[in-house]
């Protein structure tokens, strides 16, 4: 029995990397649009996948296509909840929802940008003078927001990858659960047999 156990232990102790075949789908606000990322938890990103954008009732309001890195951008036009659906085939589907209030915030940013672009031709000297007085212009605020987003992107990706990491503790915990469950069943079965005798 010991040799048999050794065989099984050798089998389960084979080196196991952390990756798993799980779909990762994340959407986040990005200035005047919604940015998203689609891929597998083993690091493969999903390129060229069509993302359906639906409203709360399931009516299609648009679509987006992922680029080489699994990134996609969608610009909302109405402050309603947006449901993003991705189907990568072979049973790999994912869904994410952005609530109406976040969409409204995005539209708010878009409105600011629009007024800025309309104002732009009119007297640049005037705006430059304002900047020195006011703490931050809307234009600068948008530029800073964009810079921060760019800096945050790798961090966010790393965080997502870290969350998907299967560490040894979890694996050992799972094995412990399995042995515990079968031990419990063994106990119940043994009691039943003892009672039967």
């Amino acid at each position, binding site marked *: *029995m010991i*040799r*048999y*156990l050794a*065989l*099984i232990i050798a*089998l*389960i102790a*084979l*080196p*196991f*990397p*952390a*990756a*798993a*075949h*799980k*779909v990762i789908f994340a959407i986040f606000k990005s200035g005047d649009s919604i940015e998203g990322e689609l891929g*597998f938890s*083993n690091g*493969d990103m999903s390129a060229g996948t069509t993302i359906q954008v639906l409203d709360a009732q399931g009516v299609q309001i648009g679509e987006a296509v992922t680029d080489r890195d699994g990134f996609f951008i969608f610009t909302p036009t109405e402050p309603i909840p947006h449901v993003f659906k991705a189907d990568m*085939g*072979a*049973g*790999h*589907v*994912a*869904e994410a929802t952005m609530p109406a209030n976040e969409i409204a915030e995005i539209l708010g940013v878009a409105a600011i940008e629009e007024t800025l672009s309309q104002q732009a031709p009119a007297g640049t000297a005037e705006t430059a003078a304002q900047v020195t007085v006011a703490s931050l212009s809307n234009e600068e605020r948008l530029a800073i927001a964009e810079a921060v987003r760019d800096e945050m992107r790798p961090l966010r990706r790393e965080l997502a990858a870290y969350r998907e990491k*299967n560490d040894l503790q*979890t*694996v050992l*915990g*799972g*094995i412990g*659960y*399995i*042995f515990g*469950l*079968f*031990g419990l*069943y*063994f106990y119940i*079965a*043994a009691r039943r*047999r003892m009672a039967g005798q």
Partner: protein
Amino acid sequence: MHIVDGALSNSVVIAGTVLAVGGVAMGLKRLSLERIPATGILSASFFVASLIHVPIGPSSVHLILNGLAGLILGWAAFPALFVGLLLQTVFFGFGGLTVLGVNALNIAGPAVLTWLLFGKLVERSSPTTGAIWAGVGGAFAIAATTCLVAFSLMLTGDAFIPAAKLVFFAHIPVMVIEALLTGTAVYLVRKVRPDLFSAIKGAAH
């Protein structure tokens, strides 16, 4: 191999769950006291085996070991693989809770089928021939699982042939590895503990 939540229609999920519950009940009924430790160990092996990834081209696939579980456990492979799947869902988010029944059926069904088809052959023949049959069984279990996954997807609307092809060809390397692993494992078990198969089977009846 793990179908995720939301990929299948409700009727497929319900049918799969009902069949899986039946399989687990059948397995527990056949599970005698003597087989419980072996069932637990194979359940743990399956749980960990799915974390071993074999990189293939742009994607990667993982081992399943359902053929081995089926050959050693017979019907008891159902509860063993079900428990493994449940914990994978809870701990790692593989698959999903609603599709647990379908996944259990897709993985444990071929395990039982392998046992029905090759179990007797493995038991009766010499260790070497038995190992070859076990290897064939290991590859067969994976092939059957890919077909069942494609079938589940087809019932929900995907075209069967392209889906099946995709999953099947991606898993050819896994079939080879599983065949070798199952063959070697059965050979070793027969060599170091020849009474394991007969003892387990004997206790079952």
